[in-house]
């Protein structure tokens, strides 16, 4: 009996002390990562951006707010690229792990689910890796989008194609998921407005591994240009099979996939493929705070051994923006931090950031601009170059 009592007392003491220790000097940020499932390539890149930010900040002592230093602590789980898990885990992160701020999962589909939970509990969530605008048009108060929204993704590519070949026949081949559909919905209109012909317009199931049938359709339609794709696995496969099938396209822009450094493993199949990018290591924004793009790239490379793509940069930027907002607010209070975020108009290594305060589309990113990167051959190896807009380019377009 006495032993049991002693154990109970010890446990109670431990709990009390650990609670206070946790509450005082730490800032808990919660999010899920798709460590497994189809989104894991890009989601892990995003997570590395978060972690690099956290490690650098904690090395300096943490976030400074109201005279105190808070070390950043992450609470993160594997959402398995599944909506059901996102819902369960964000509820857990808010209720049990008591996270004070949230980062989003990766991909518009999962973020839409996470946003429902975060709004339900009134927690600030910085969304990165999420371009679909619908999520922000449902009447939220605490979402803040870091990426440019989906309707801008292919606008640059379409403009470029129009300049190169006003008579081009365009095939729109894309993944049947919220993000890709959102991008292509705008792209469809932009293609017609640019006066280009749409030769083919088809969505493929996210489970597709064999693009042969659809590529044959592209060939039958005699298309010159292909716009579309989805995320990494399908984009990479589509690119590889387009090359194998000698589809004869003069311009291929795929979403997301070609931005990952892993895309280089496709070798010759990668050359010529372009991607709308939220960010590239070569950009030369002058940041108001935080490192420059070059410094960030160098630190990321030192830590992880590969060059960062825009997913990692977006993750890092989300951290920087939250940090800045907390420092400016001088407190961890949700309302005051949200206030600062709403008023924010700053430039970081990621570019310009300004959130919309229009209640109909709160949090939508207004300031950020996209670039187009294309894989080209340098010294017989595929290398990513920025080709659009003309003001930011590092190399000429390969058509």
């Amino acid at each position, binding site marked *: 009996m006495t032993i049991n009592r002693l154990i109970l007392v010890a446990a109670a003491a431990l709990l009390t002390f650990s609670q206070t220790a946790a509450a005082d000097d730490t800032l808990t940020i919660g999010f899920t990562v798709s460590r*497994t499932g189809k989104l894991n390539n890009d989601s892990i890149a995003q997570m590395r951006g978060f972690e690099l930010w956290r490690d650098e900040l904690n090395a300096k002592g943490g976030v400074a707010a109201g005279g105190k230093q808070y070390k950043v602590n992450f609470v993160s789980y594997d959402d398995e690229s599944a909506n059901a898990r996102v819902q369960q885990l964000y509820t857990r992160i808010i209720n049990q792990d008591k996270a004070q701020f949230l980062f989003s999962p990766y991909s518009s589909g999962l973020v839409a689910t996470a946003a429902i939970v975060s709004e339900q509990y009134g927690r600030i969530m910085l969304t990165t890796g999420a371009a679909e605008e619908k999520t922000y048009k449902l009447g939220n108060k605490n979402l803040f989008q870091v990426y440019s929204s989906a309707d801008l993704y292919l606008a640059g590519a379409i403009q470029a194609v129009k300049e190169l070949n006003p008579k081009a026949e365009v095939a729109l081949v894309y993944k049947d998921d919220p993000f890709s559909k959102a991008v292509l919905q705008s792209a469809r209109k932009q293609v017609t407005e640019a006066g280009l012909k749409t030769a083919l317009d088809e969505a493929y199931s996210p*489970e597709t*591994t064999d693009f042969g049938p659809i590529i044959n359709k592209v060939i039958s339609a005699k298309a010159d240009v292909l716009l579309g794709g989805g995320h990494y696995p399908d984009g*990479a496969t589509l690119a590889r099979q387009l090359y*194998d099938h000698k589809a004869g396209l003069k311009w291929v822009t795929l979403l997301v996939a070609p931005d990952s450094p892993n895309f280089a493993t496709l070798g010759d199949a990668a050359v010529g493929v372009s991607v709308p990018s939220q960010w590239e290591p070569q950009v030369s924004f002058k940041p108001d705070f935080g490192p420059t793009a070059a410094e960030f790239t160098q630190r990321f490379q030192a830590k992880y051994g590969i060059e960062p793509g825009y997913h990692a940069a977006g993750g890092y930027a989300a951290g920087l923006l939250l940090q800045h907002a907390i420092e400016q607010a001088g407190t961890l209070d949700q309302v005051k931090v949200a206030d600062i975020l709403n008023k924010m108009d700053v430039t970081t290594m990621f570019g310009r950031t300004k959130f919309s305060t229009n209640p109909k589309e709160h949090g939508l990113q207004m300031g950020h601009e996209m670039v187009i990167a294309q894989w080209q051959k340098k010294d017989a190896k595929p290398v990513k170059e920025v080709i659009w807009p003309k003001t930011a380019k590092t190399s000429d377009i390969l058509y």
Partner: protein
Amino acid sequence: MTGVIASIIDGVLVGAVYGLAAMGLTLIWGVMNVINLTHGAMIVLGMFALYFLASAVGLPPYGAVPVTIVIGFVVGVLVYWIAVHRVVGRAHLMSLLSTFSMNMVLIGLGTALFSTSPYNVPVPLPGVTWEGYTFTGTHIMAAILALLIAGLLYLLLYRTRVGKAIRAVADNREAAELNGIPTTQVLSFAFGLGAALASVSGTLIATLFPFTVLSGGAYELKSFVVTVLGGLGNPAGALMGGVALGLIEGIATPFMPVSWTPIIEFLLFIAVLILFPRGIFAFTRFS
């Protein structure tokens, strides 16, 4: 029109590989009346075997084919003794549950080891171009190998003593036992054979497309459709069923959005189950 023909040829090529995959499933089903739900895991085994043999050991991709047959066989026999031996002859539900759980274990192990990242084995093989459409060398090679292996299976089943024993056990296990055939060993051999077929089809699929630990599921599903088309326990029917499925996919895709193909496949599945319960190709059944 050329588009449709190209699509059909492509479909038939891939269909041969589907047929090979289904042969493993239907063999096990026919011989011991067990629905092998580890089929998908065996396919994935073949895929990863190719990846590791090609990248780690540096084997040329098609050289991995015989190695995978052996690996698949060994793993199949192991799975038989762990999960199947005690449920052969019992209620179907038991063998379903048993192989289902084994599948979960195998896929879980795979996910823990390799995560669900996509793996890719580049196989540079020149293709055949016709009227602007290219039939990749890998597709052609895979179809040829699938037919070759199917031919070898036929020889095994009809020209060797082991094959005779397998057919005897498939026909009537008790009678075979009474005739002095060690039925348990034959069953484990047959299971290993079925797994080997699944694995080698996985290897061939891996030369065509990238894959992840979870890729086996989609092909397992196609194998079920093909097995039904061909008739349970009928390997020749399975090969023909696979080619037929590939053909149907090839004919359908030029005329409708690609996302409709699975709908057509499964409508066909249901139609065949109702109208031809013994399979469309039941006339090729062995006896």
